[in-house]
């Protein structure tokens, strides 16, 4: 239920943002449309997942630090990429690093990789479920061990509480 | 002053658009072309946002919105076709 409610709220927000209007009627229609669509596609969207989100308030709270950490990564990455592109720093052994998935859920993998890919300097190439690793391309892979460690550190510290 | 900034930026964006279009055409590999087209759509979003800012209207943002939301479907399709010769 809370999963559904959260979805309705977010979708209603999308609707109102798209209309750029928070008129009560618009909120109402947004909620109606969102609920209706969620009902129509419930099997596709929620099939197999519990309807309740465990520890919702805590996860919402933990989301913000996670977001800021990601933003920091993005800015730092941007700087790095800029330096490399503008010949201010040499292109030092880029390459593909295999980062173990460890205890991440599929959603966790997705979010982890989204955050990784968003920040310049790293992006997801492929996921190898047999080896249970995520292949990530790094602009600076001169020390793969350090890269892996940084990633796992980021996951444990910021992401795990929101998207395990 | 602000107009000039926006105006120069708009011209500049159009030029960037041109560069990415040239990249679509001249890139060495297909993956680069797809990447260049993806970049082109992003620059397009930027150009539309800028144009909206310059005109102080939201009208062009709708096009930018749907580009942001959905144009990656085309990139994905192209990439899938390139990578595995399949789609759907």
């Amino acid at each position, binding site marked *: 239920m809370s999963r559904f409610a959260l979805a309705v709220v977010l979708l209603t927000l999308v609707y109102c943002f798209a209309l750029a209007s928070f008129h009560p009627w618009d909120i109402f229609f947004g909620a109606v449309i969102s609920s209706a669509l969620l009902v129509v596609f419930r099997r596709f969207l929620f099939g197999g997942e519990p309807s309740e989100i465990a520890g919702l308030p805590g996860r919402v709270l933990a989301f913000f630090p996670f977001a800021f950490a990601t933003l920091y990564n993005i800015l730092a990455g941007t700087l790095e990429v800029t330096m490399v592109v503008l010949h201010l720093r040499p292109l030092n052994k880029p390459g593909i690093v295999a980062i173990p998935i460890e205890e991440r859920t599929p959603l966790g993998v997705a979010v982890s990789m989204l955050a990784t890919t968003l920040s310049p300097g790293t992006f997801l190439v492929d996921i190898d479920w047999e080896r249970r690793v995520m292949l990530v391309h790094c602009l600076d892979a001169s020390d793969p061990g350090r890269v892996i460690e940084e990633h796992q550190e980021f996951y444990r510290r910021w992401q795990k509480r929101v998207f395990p | 002053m602000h107009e000039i900034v926006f105006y120069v930026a708009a011209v500049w964006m159009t030029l960037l658009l041109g560069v990415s279009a040239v990249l679509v055409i001249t890139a060495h590999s*297909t993956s680069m072309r797809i990447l260049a087209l993806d970049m082109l759509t992003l620059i*397009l979003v930027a150009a539309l946002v800028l144009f909206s800012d310059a005109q102080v209207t939201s009208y062009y943002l709708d096009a930018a919105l749907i580009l942001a939301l959905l144009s990656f479907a085309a990139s994905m*399709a192209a990439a899938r076709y390139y990578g595995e010769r399949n789609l759907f």
Partner: protein
Amino acid sequence: MRPRLAAPVGAVFAALAFAATLWGWLLAGGGTVDLPWAPSWDLRFTLALDGLAALYSLLATGIGFAVTVYASRYLPLHLEHQGRSEADIPRFHFFILMFMGSMVGLVMAQDLILIFVFWDLTAIASYYLIGYDAHERDSRRSALMALLVTGITAVCLLIGALMLYAAYGTFSLPALIEASEPGALLAAAGALIAVAGLAKSAQVPFQFWLPRAMAAPTPVSAYLHSAAMVAAGVFLLGRFYPLIQKTDWLLDALLVVGLGSMAVGGILALTRNVLKQLLAYSTISQYGYVVFMFGLGGEYGAVGASFYVIAHALAKAALFLTAGAVTEATHGETRLSHLGGLRRELPFLMVASGFSAAGLAALPLTIGFFKDELFFEAALERGGVFPALAVAGAVLTFAYTWRFWSGIFLGERRSEAHGVPAAMTVPVAALGALVIAGGLYVAPFARLAQAAGEVTFNAPTPIDPAYHLDARAENLMALATYALGVLVILSRSFWIGAAEAFARLGELAGPERLYFASLKGLNAFSDRIHDLEVRDLRTRVATILGPTGVLVGAGLLFTPTRGAYEVGAIGPLDWPLFLALILVAVAAIATVFPRRHLTLALVLSSVGYILAVVFAFFGGPDVAMVQVLVETIMALLFIGILVLLPRKVLEREASNPIPRRRKVRDAGVALIAGFFAFAVSWSTLSQPALEESVAQEHIRLAPEAHAKDVVTAILADFRGLDTLGEITVVGIALLGIATLLSRGRLW
């Protein structure tokens, strides 16, 4: 319904029609039907039973009756010989009746277009009758020939009629006769009409179709030659004679044609071996007389021509029916050289056809005597060399008629023969009896001819053919004819070589040869130019773009261009648009180069996306958005199709090098196309924008439509019909895609 019933039905129709015509002319004094036909084009359905109409109607129905009776026995035998079913009988009688009906209509019609309609109806009927034995190649070729010669020349009649209408504003023949004045127009129209008439009456140089038409069953030939097809030709001359005679050179031309036909027909008739061929050339020659008489002009010419038609029709029909009966009696023998001595097997036929032959040869006590009398009188009236020419013609007639008749019945027997049914001889006898009756009491025929002649001459003609037992010129000419005729018959071995050489010359260089050569050449030429036809899409497209460019070029040449073109200022705020436009052009050019299809798709997408920017810069957010969306979904579709197509095939296309020469050619065509688009758009956009436009109204009225977005107001309200049509196109596209990809299943 039994097929054989068709003959009695046809005969009854013919008899009734004959009776009705006779009654209408003799007792009711002619009469006119005048109905509006196509008032908006001044066409009237006008029929009048005047003397000329009466003459030809009586011939068409009377001889039609005889032919139908004859065919009632002939046709079943004919079909039996060919192994065909009797189901084909009604078709024959249908077309004979149609022929008869259209002849009657033709001769009575007073409206030029109506005349043309009936004229062509006779051509259709004759086409089907000549092609009655359609399984035989000869029959098909002959039918086609007859149709082409008579049908195409018929168009001359139409043109002539329309010229007269253009000049005098009426299609009514009597009115035209009143109104028309000599001049170039009248001469041209008259000449065109005369061409139609001459072609149909098988006059030189159109004579060749008639002997070919002998491929038809005998009753058809009999009818065609005596009362219908060929007669229609001279009828037309007679009908339009009041117009034709206003032009002197036309009459002279008729003289020449008539003389030529007389000579050609007569000489060839002397050389033919096949019975019907002989008769066919005789017909050409005989109608040559008629045309000759028209050419001679004067009242004798007019009346003589009419009288000649009657006399000839009676005699010739009988002779054709004789030929058919003889062939039937001898199990299909058609050659004179294999016939002879049938006086014992077919005595009745011999006598009956003897009367007709005598009539054709213009012996006294037959109606034929008077035809030649009038003929000679007309020639004498004109004077000069013409009496001599007339005698020469008559001599030929005398000679070939004798050859025909004597060749069948006299001499020694050369083939097996048996009797023929009475239905095949009685019509011959009846016609023969009429030939003799006319010789004994000429008045009714003379009256008919005179009535017709008056119509033709467009003035009273007090002409009264009769026997005059004195040494007047006509009688002397007749005697000379008989004497010379006998001489010609006796001296056959002297001139036959020359005559046959003449015939062979005609075969080698005559109009028939020309006809076949042109038809063959036409087909060959058609085949040749068909090789020039384009069979690939590329050239098909090029042949559109090239001429379009040429037309635009011509358009530029013919209109003033000075001051019509503007470069247009680039305002300070226009630079982004300017750049974007250039980008579109660059990206568009880039679509030429990629080999791989995926690259092509990507480049195409970039063109589309940049175009969206252009639309945005033009102040059209809605358009920009649609362009973006369409481009995205098109990319999906494009790639989907690429997935569907096997990789190897795509790679083959990708690696297929384009020859340099073709590249140059394609680029040339593309340049022309670009030039077209450039010229049209530049010239249009150079026109200063109008202050007032309906778009201003749309902007003004959008609030009335409760809309803020004027474009959407236009799409959903002002011009909703366009949008409805547009989505219908999309819906049909879905239907079409379903048809192509899943046999029309939509789910």
